[in-house]
């Protein structure tokens, strides 16, 4: 486990020095701009627009980082051969993989937390007060982090057995599929035969349902997110990530490095 921590801290350090976190500047500017713009629109919905916009931006930026950097975690080390010296040390391949995973998740958490602060600042600027229900915004942010962690796991998985370009494509693809997965369960079944329908439903369960982590609609209107949902979504994210990482570790353990 110590090895996992070592790799994780190093990955975090790499992200910081690689200026990944500069996206925060862009985000801060976006929030400020939005806060100013929104002041011109009719009263009553500014806070909901800020929250929606902010959460959307946090989510989108996070997704880009998760996919692009997630895929690079392993591919870059393989390309540049930094991996050679590392794997010659007494460290297991799965320890390396987990370390990379946690390192990026740490980075994303810090990044997202900083953006959340920016969001609250913008909200304060517009509302001049914060109510109790605003705490659910934090819940929404937490769920976004869970979503990003799962996405990182998937990016890692794909990068273990295909080229970086394809890994990015697959990760983005599965993200989109995962967002619409729940629609597969509720779609109007008219022309489809029951066997196909059942299969599609099965697929919809196996796909990572990213919508589970989306409470933007509720939170933007000051609604309440039930604790049970948060708990189940957390379990979902953790278990699914574990499944994905187990698969990645299995594949990576037998991979011949060029």
């Amino acid at each position, binding site marked *: 486990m110590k090895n996992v921590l070592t790799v994780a801290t190093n990955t975090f350090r*790499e992200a910081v020095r690689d200026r990944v976190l500069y996206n925060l500047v862009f985000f801060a500017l976006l929030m400020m701009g939005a806060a100013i713009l929104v002041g011109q629109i009719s009263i009553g919905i500014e806070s909901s627009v800020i929250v929606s916009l902010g959460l959307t931006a946090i989510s989108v930026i996070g997704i880009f980082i998760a996919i692009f950097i997630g895929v690079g975690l392993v591919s870059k080390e393989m390309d540049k*051969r930094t991996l*050679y010296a590392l794997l*010659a040390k*007494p460290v297991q391949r799965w320890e390396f993989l987990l370390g990379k995973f946690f390192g990026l998740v740490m980075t994303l958490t810090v990044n997202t937390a900083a953006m959340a602060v920016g969001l609250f600042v913008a909200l304060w600027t517009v509302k001049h007060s914060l109510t109790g229900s605003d705490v659910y915004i934090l819940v929404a942010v937490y769920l976004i982090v869970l979503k990003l962690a799962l996405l990182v796991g998937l990016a890692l998985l794909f990068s273990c057995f295909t080229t970086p370009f394809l890994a990015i494509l697959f990760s983005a693809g599965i993200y989109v599929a995962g967002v619409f997965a729940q629609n597969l369960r509720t779609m109007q079944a008219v022309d489809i035969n029951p066997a196909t329908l059942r299969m599609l439903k099965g697929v919809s369960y196996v796909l990572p349902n990213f919508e589970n982590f989306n409470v933007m609609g509720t939170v933007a209107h000051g609604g309440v997110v039930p604790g049970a949902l948060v708990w189940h979504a957390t379990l979902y994210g953790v278990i699914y990530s574990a499944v994905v990482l187990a698969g990645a570790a299995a594949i990576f353990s037998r991979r*011949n490095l060029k």
Partner: protein
Amino acid sequence: MSTPAIETENLSKEYPFGFLNLKTKKSLENLTMRVETGEVFGFLGPNGAGKSTTIKLLMRLIFPTSGTARIQGKSIDDVRMHQNIGYLPEQPYFYDYLTATEVLDYFARFHNLSAGDRRERVAKMLQKVGLETAKKIQLRKYSKGMLQRVGLAQAILHDPEVVVLDEPMSGLDPLGRREVRDIILELKHAGKTVLFSTHILTDAEMLCDRVGVIVGGKLRGVGTPGEMVGIQTQGMEILFELHGELQKAPLLARAARTGERYRVQIPESELYGAIDELKAAGARILSVSQVKPNLEEFFMNLVEADRAQANAIDVSGK
């Protein structure tokens, strides 16, 4: 017979290639060899012969198609034995954004060293490989030679019993190469086992207790450098200097000339006769040395033979 430091048994590696990966290429075929504890063993071969493949197989970066290998008696499957092994990869590249100190510290953390011990060793290593002054600069600013030195440092930092170096001299200037040679000799005197691959034959001759020659994925021979080429000398070579007029002497006709310096080869039996001749001619003798067939010729012959065989196979289609 003590446990060899490294031993392999019929180690083989095949790669699929070509259209739909249907064909396989054998990059290593049935390698069986031993490296004894405390010896410096050189792996010789042209590029693509299989030296790096063997080393990567030993370090478990790639997996063998068949065959086994053991280091210090333990199967290579056990990653924990890497505690006692140091490895320098070919053309090492490390994390751009870290400094030398940070890289060494990072790699050192995977070994069970206390924080203080780690710090001490990192400092010692940096000095040993001559990177003391550059230790706070980020690696992306390093030259290839400097990176090679960082690589060497991380390989021996934890004082391993077995050191495996893949082309350790590549990219180094003569001074750098001399330093690496010194380090290898130091390791040998400390009783460590060193396996290194190279295609620079003079280095192998100078450093190795034994060499193994790999050509075309097959081990062609193992032995001391002397054994490999036979002990017979081919004669003596005299290097001399002569000003002014060439005086008639059968010797001089055979000499190769560069300005006022001449080099001539003669059978050992004729040595003293030749020296008298030169003395009479007023030449100044600079050196007298043995001419041995060297590894290079042996090597070249092997490569040529291998290539001829490969061509023959291609042509006959078998």
